């Protein structure tokens, strides 16, 4: 099963709708609670990152017999220092983001903690976050 979602930059009202749909999909398939929770937390964090840090992008959701794969792509401006961004508490979010409950600096660390596999590529043209969750944990 493959799904695709558009993510609009700075749209705080719609932020989370992709993750919400992913959650509904996984719940309807009666997948294990722990797996759903991990996928949704990571998905929500990744979606919010595209909303608050990029000029917009999209997400894909792929469910196979073995794994759930999420990919988040945006069109920049990219993460200047990935090493710093991976530190818990480091954030470049604005006051407006904080007022919307974002910018704790836990987004990428949360994704890493939740997913079984995480790959991150970023340059000024955009960022790609690749997250894999194995259905039976390795």
């Amino acid at each position: 099963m493959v799904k695709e979602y558009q993510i609009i930059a700075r749209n705080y009202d719609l932020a989370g709708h992709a993750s919400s749909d992913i959650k509904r999909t996984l719940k309807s398939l009666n997948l294990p609670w722990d797996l759903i929770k991990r996928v949704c937390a990571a998905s929500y964090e990744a979606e919010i990152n595209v909303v608050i840090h990029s000029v917009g992008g999209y997400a894909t959701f792929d469910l196979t017999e073995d794994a759930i794969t999420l990919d988040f792509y945006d069109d920049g401006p990219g993460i200047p220092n990935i090493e710093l961004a991976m530190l818990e508490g480091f954030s470049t979010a604005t006051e407006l983001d904080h007022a919307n409950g974002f910018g704790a600096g836990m987004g990428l660390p949360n994704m890493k903690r939740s997913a079984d596999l995480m790959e991150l590529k970023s340059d000024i043209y955009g960022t790609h976050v690749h997250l894999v969750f194995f259905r039976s944990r390795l």
Partner: protein
Amino acid sequence: MKLSEVIKQFHCHVYTPEFAIDKEINYAFCADLMSDALMVLNSVKDDRILKESILITGLTTNQSIRTAEMLDMEVVLLVRGKIPSLKVIELAKELNIILLSTDYTMFNTSGIMYQDGIKGIIYNQQW
């Protein structure tokens, strides 16, 4: 403690009166930044804990409701007299989340709840 008792204790305004308030509440967690909530609450080891929890927050945007949704939490309590917008109330109703507000501050709300036996959720909380 029953949710109805919490509502009475904190003189809560109930924005979603269509949902039953006789459920049991045994845990709570406070955050204004939703990643903090996701990080700790996602580590919980038993889904019954989140089902019997309240998310206490001063964040009145859709994101407090979305975070509760992601975590399968059923109750969001807004503190410091914050009033949610209609779209936030509508989202809570759509997602079957009980939305409350109280004039109490976050610290006082937490302190009183703790005194009443409601436990704070910690990393890797076990049932």
